[in-house]
């Protein structure tokens, strides 16, 4: 199993308040899996369990077939790209230096780092000559999100986690970035787990969709099967998307 697998995973805060309850899911090597749910449903916790920012209280999480408990956390995190909700670009580093963080941690030679930065800037549609030496606070929200994606992809990790990557953007930029994501994913073909509260985004981008409700995975399957669900909570989420489509 090359992707990410959750087997009966539970997670509680301080071992008491349950955040995730018996979640099982499988995301294949080149698959994009979207986790949908209201805020507080436990979506971000799922991501943090993948790169071992958290460890499960019960069940196990396997990345590339290995239990996260057995992974060296540093190695694991360097092979899992993470686009976090607030982007979290380092304000004291230029765009190029932000993208280059993990390759440099991995000890790549500078020439290879520079080539990789330019390649990624091309991939996310920012002209390298213009943007390489910009500072994060000189970028628009959409540009910052793209740099966040480029930074997560920099060392070519097999797994990519994206936490509301298009959340804080205006609808037009959002639509544009979603299209770009599809194009990028077609080229890089990673195991992607995408967290969103927006069902239409999930249906548009993912090969598989899971619906989280207060810590339980209440539905999962391919996007075209979700309309057939008779769970009221799933139906409620699907119906919000109808006017938008």
């Amino acid at each position, binding site marked *: 199993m090359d992707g990410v697998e959750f087997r009966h995973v539970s997670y509680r805060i301080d071992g008491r308040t349950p955040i995730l309850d018996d979640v099982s899911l499988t995301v294949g090597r080149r698959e994009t899996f979207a986790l949908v749910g209201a805020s507080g449903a436990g979506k971000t916790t799922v991501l943090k369990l993948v*790169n071992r*920012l958290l460890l499960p209280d019960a069940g196990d999480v396997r990345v590339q077939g290995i239990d996260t408990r057995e992974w060296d*956390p*540093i*190695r*694991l*995190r*360097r092979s*899992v790209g*993470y686009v*976090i*909700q*607030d*982007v*979290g*670009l*380092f*304000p*004291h*580093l*230029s765009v190029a230096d932000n993208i280059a*963080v*993990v390759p440099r*941690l991995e000890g790549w030679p500078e020439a290879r780092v520079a080539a990789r930065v330019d390649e990624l800037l091309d991939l996310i549609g920012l002209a390298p000559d213009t943007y390489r030496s910009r*500072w994060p*606070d000189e970028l628009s929200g959409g540009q910052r999100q793209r740099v966040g994606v480029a*930074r997560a992809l920099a060392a070519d990790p097999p797994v990519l986690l994206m936490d509301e990557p298009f959340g804080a953007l205006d609808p037009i930029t959002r639509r544009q970035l979603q299209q770009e994501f599809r194009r990028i994913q077609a080229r890089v073909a990673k195991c992607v787990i995408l967290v969103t509260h927006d069902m239409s985004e999930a249906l548009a981008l993912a090969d598989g969709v899971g619906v989280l409700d207060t810590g339980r995975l209440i539905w999962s399957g391919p996007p075209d099967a979700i309309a057939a669900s008779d769970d009221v909570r799933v139906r409620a989420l699907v119906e919000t998307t109808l006017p938008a489509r």
Partner: protein
Amino acid sequence: MNALVRFWAANRQELATLVAEHILLVAMSTTIAVAIGVPLAIFATRRPRLASPLVGIANVVQTVPSLAMFGFLLPVPLIGGVGARAALAVLTLYGLLPIVRSTIVGITGIDPSIRLAGVAMGMTPRQLLRQIELPLALPSIVAGIRVAAVVGVGSATIAAAIGAGGLGQYIYRGLSMVDSTVILAGAIPAALLAVIVDGGLLWLERRLSARRRARSRRAGMMAAAALAAIAVAGSVLWASRDTGAIVVGSKNFTEQLILGEILALTIERETGLPVQRRLNLGGTLICDRALLTGDIDVYVEYTGTALTAIFRQPAATDPAAVTDVVRRLYADTGRTLLPPLGFDNTFAILVRGADARALSLRTIDDVARVAPEWRAGFGYEFLERPDGYPGLARTYGLMFRSPPQVMDLTLSYRALASGQVDLIAGDATAGLIKGLDLFQLEDNRRYFPPYEAVPVARAETLLRYPQVRRALEGLAGRITADDMREMNYAADALRQNPADIARAFVERGR
């Protein structure tokens, strides 16, 4: 103003040395405070439960008055005592709080999503610290360094009290000579220095928080390099400074400065040994402690002071008996009392010459009659010591209109002359007695013990350098009360340099 410029011009070499010493003291203590404080603060951010007690302790340290801090540290081995090392220790302690606090604030104030991004990218704690936390906290850390350095410039003036040099030396000398020109000669450059340090570090701080970080990082590196260079240069200079074989100390008033110079010049001339001067130390007990610990080798003490203030014996009035007791007590603690210099600097109860003539006052008994209408002003030491005011009041039945005012001994002469108080306790050899037309009342009940001026030296030093003993014995009986009053007058009233006065005296005696 003109007098000030003339003073600086005449002493420009000394001024340059003092400014350099001052800058070195502040730069070195600040560098050490950074070297200790930043790691300490980083540690505290890793153990949040330690952070607030740590800041609490640093806060308490900050509130201890600096002079008291020097006092606390006197008996502490390694960092205590007198001289540059102790001053560095005190200034470093003061610098710690702002640096620790600003580093903690700088690190804990970083946006959590930025730290999360670093951790999620697989940074080790060390990489996170060096690549993310420290660079982002740097402007805040520099702000703390700025506060530490500015406070340091101020506190460093007090370092002169323990013989660590710096601009405070002028301030203390000016205070002991009651010469505002000399005080300003030290105070103005110190204030300017504070303004410059503040401005320079503020510039650096702004630079670091500005958007162009690549260039500012270079600025930060340059500043760090400059600090390091100063620290290295400082330690080299300091190491080379402390080469005097014999260290002569003195207390912080004119007569002591002159006597210290006379001892130093005599040893230099008679033995050819290098002599280091640690004059102007902040009081009897500091000198005594310095002599015990070996920070100084010799200074001039007064027999009555040694008996009551140092050895806490009841006051006695027979000069020969006092000298014998004191010699024995010193010998018990590894110190040698050398032959007396020849004059007795007892306490002098002083009134204005005009009052003495108008009311025909001659003795302290005479003044007891009018005292209930009068105000008295005494130095702190005189008010406290057993052979000072309490016994005097009892012996003569003295009562004043209000409790005696505490004032600086050297300022009290002026306070008397200008009518702020009507009676003071001064030194019998004070030059200002002549300069300000003051009158010394006779101690007709023989209350005050004898205060013969005697050099006290470490026995160890005298054994090692017998020629020093011979040189100091050569001074026996050579300085009369008149000589001393004249020399004090030259310094206090004629504003001559104590070193020049001492030189003239030593040369005349040859």
